[in-house]
């Protein structure tokens, strides 16, 4: 089943990002939300995106803007909270890593 992984905090400060990346399977999606938007440059996240190209990565653009964070990578897809609601129903289940 395709899972949506919500990442709400910084992988530099907490192990939640690492745990998420250890658990991710092809076809899953990642959503960077709140302090999750601090992870655009996190080496582990970038490596996962390179190695597992089936994974889709979203972020809340409003949350990134507020934090002066901007992805260098076109693989990160900016979305709104309304689109998050749609994503929740599009995926089979979700885990909130925070």
């Amino acid at each position, binding site marked *: 089943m395709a899972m949506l992984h*919500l990442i709400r905090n910084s992988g530099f400060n907490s192990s939640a990002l690492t745990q998420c990346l250890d658990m991710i399977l092809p076809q899953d999606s990642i959503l960077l939300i709140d302090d999750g938007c601090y992870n655009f440059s996190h080496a582990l996240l970038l490596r996962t995106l390179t190695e597992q190209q089936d994974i889709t990565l979203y972020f809340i653009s409003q949350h990134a803007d507020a934090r002066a964070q901007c992805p260098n990578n076109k693989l990160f897809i900016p979305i*709104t909270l309304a689109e*998050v*609601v*749609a994503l929740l*129903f599009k995926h089979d289940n979700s885990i909130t890593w925070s």
Partner: protein
Amino acid sequence: MQNRLALVVTTPPSSNLTTTAINLVRAALDSGVSIVGVFFYQDGVLNAAKYLSIPSDEFQTLAQWQQLNSEYNVPLYLCITAAEKRGLSDELNNHESSNIDSAFTVSGLGELVELTSKAERVVQL
């Protein structure tokens, strides 16, 4: 047909993470999704505290929950066991009977089971 979403809120009212949860509820309502309920657990129970004093120029978390409850009929369920550990009670000894805001329904974890069962999707925030 209508999609049904439940939320579990575990973050305190002073956190911007709670603002995100409120905004997600609003976005869901705007999209025609039905919110079967919001369950407050762990530090999320502090959202039901009646006497929070937030400066008037800051985000008024409690007023937002009250509005979602009164205007959009979003049910707000408070886990009383988690709440009592954190200073909230609906059975105080003195003149005042409760320090829980009336927009919140005092309930137990059984309500989480109900919501989990009724909703098509559940998200923890």
